[in-house]
């Protein structure tokens, strides 16, 4: 039953799925790394982005993969505004308050979606959604390959931004030493908002990559974010390479776990890994690069 071929296919599919987890986790870990806070609104924002991608296709006829170029800037602006206008002023720099404000936003966004669009499940049909490519030994779905490639490109772009632009340097400075950065003339509130915007843009891109093969509901994002929390914890809070590797690992674990034990136990196993890692190695398996 466990032929190497089937296992290879499960592993490859896990890697492809894991790429999207990695992207969602990347947004989360970026925000954590700089603001030192877990953004509980991440899942609700992903759900909102899924709706945005869905309606961009249904109403405007924009292909989801092209919608990336529309939604990423829009959600960047949304994230920027949320942090600058709501989260920052409301929390006044207190960690516990920030947690609660993001939780409040999550409840608000999720239920606003529920109120506006009800709990109906929506999907879109695209001609290429079911296309596969024959690799000789296995078939892989085209949308998953595209999203895998897109995630690699986005990660590379993010790395370039963080490494070589002034904004990226400012973000890293704030993450390392907030007070020092402020004394050096960096506008910390602005950098916080930029970071939140980048994290939210990651979510928008993930939504565009998901929409061709996934369904849209007001709570669809939550499933991914709980996995993303696991990824972030595995990879080390605040670590970008950790998020990428962690995402791929979790994708493979889930794929193999689902294949061996069935869906709902596969889900529990992810949570148990999550709790175990938090308890045993809260810095993450790969250690955070702070």
């Amino acid at each position, binding site marked *: 039953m466990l032929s190497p071929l089937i296992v290879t296919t499960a592993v490859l599919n896990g890697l492809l799925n894991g790429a999207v987890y990695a992207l969602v986790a990347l947004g989360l870990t970026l925000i954590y790394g700089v603001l030192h806070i877990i953004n509980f609104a991440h899942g609700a924002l992903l759900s909102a982005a899924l709706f945005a991608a869905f309606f961009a296709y249904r109403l405007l006829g924009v292909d989801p993969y092209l919608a990336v170029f529309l939604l990423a800037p829009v959600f960047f602006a949304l994230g920027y505004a949320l942090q600058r206008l709501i989260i920052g002023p409301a929390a006044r720099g207190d960690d516990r308050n920030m947690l609660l404000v993001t939780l409040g936003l999550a409840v608000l966004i999720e239920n606003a979606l529920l109120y506006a669009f009800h709990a109906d499940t929506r999907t879109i049909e695209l001609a290429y959604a079911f296309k596969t490519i024959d690799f000789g030994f296995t078939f892989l779905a085209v949308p998953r390959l595209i999203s895998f490639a897109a995630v690699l490109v986005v990660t590379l772009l993010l790395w370039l931004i963080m490494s070589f632009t002034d904004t990226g340097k400012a973000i890293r400075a704030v993450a390392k030493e907030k007070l020092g950065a402020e004394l050096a003339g960096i506008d910390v509130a602005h950098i916080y908002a930029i970071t939140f915007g980048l994290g939210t843009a990651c979510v928008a891109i993930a939504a565009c990559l998901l929409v061709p093969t996934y369904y849209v509901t007001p709570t669809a994002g939550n499933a991914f974010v709980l996995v993303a929390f696991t990824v972030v914890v595995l990879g080390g809070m605040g670590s970008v390479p950790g998020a990428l590797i962690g995402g791929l690992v979790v994708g493979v674990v889930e794929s193999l776990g689902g294949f061996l034990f069935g869906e709902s136990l596969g889900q*529990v196993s992810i949570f148990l890994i999550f709790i175990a890692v938090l308890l045993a190695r809260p810095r993450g398996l790969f250690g955070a690069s702070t």
Partner: protein
Amino acid sequence: MKGLSLIAAVATALAAVPLVVHSNVVLNFLVVALLIALAGQGWNILGGYGGQYSFGHAAFFGTGAYVTAVLQVRYGINAWLGFGAGIAAGAALGAGIGALVFRAGLRSSYFALVTLAFAEVLRILASVAPITGAGVGTLIKLDLRAQSFQFQSRAIFYLVALALVVASLVITQLLERSRFGIWLIAVRENEDAATAVGVDTMAVKLGAMVISAAVTAAAGCFYAQYFLFVDSGIAYGTWISIEALLTPIIGGVGTVFGPLVGALLVKALGEGARLVTGDAPGLDLMVYGVMLVLVIAFAPRGLVGALADVRDRLTGRITAARSAAREAARG
């Protein structure tokens, strides 16, 4: 003690409500508000006084509810014993999770995350395990007798809920004035400093978690007896984790009466939103989300704290006016 006499006054006033109000709708509303106040008081002991913000108090609520229900339905155990067992099970779970989590040194965001994860694991397990009735849930047989913890009259249910809430108020009041309570507040204000002056922060947090879990579990036990039905989405759902933290934060975090005031306000606004829009799904929760953000932005000490501020300002003004008058009289 001033606090205890205030609790006695509030308890007497609330106990008189069924003498005046006979509407089942109003009594039902009040019972649910008291239930949430109880769950919130549990959260408040750990979160409000100890500063450990749990996002997964559903774990304790659900355990209380399931233990009460399952012991009766599957093992034929008396409802009152089941009620006690539910509270004990909640406390034990609190001790277990607390020992794991605090020993690992998880704080702030990590603590919120790991409590959320525990609640989710329990929810998924309860939705597949045969003993909980899996996806179907557990239905408690209707048996309207006092020895089965079921009452014909809403008013009696209301008084039982009130008794539980009053007990939680007394516990919190005594805690606030005790040495243990002072240690707990010290942990909230600055854990490292508390450790430095010799507070056993691990033991203090663990103790608070056990009391907190027991109180929230009591709310779960009461839920099971009142609605006679439990499933995984009700017992371990995020709704109760959110309402348990929302009520003390809206009412006044780390105050004795915060959860009660918050629960009445939150439930009133939720019902109001529902009345205005005709029960549209999501709207009452939207109101909760907005309230949470607004309270943190404008009244971080909640309603009780805001009222205290207003009182202080008024008395300050009166004192100022008096001294001004005295000055004027002196010429």
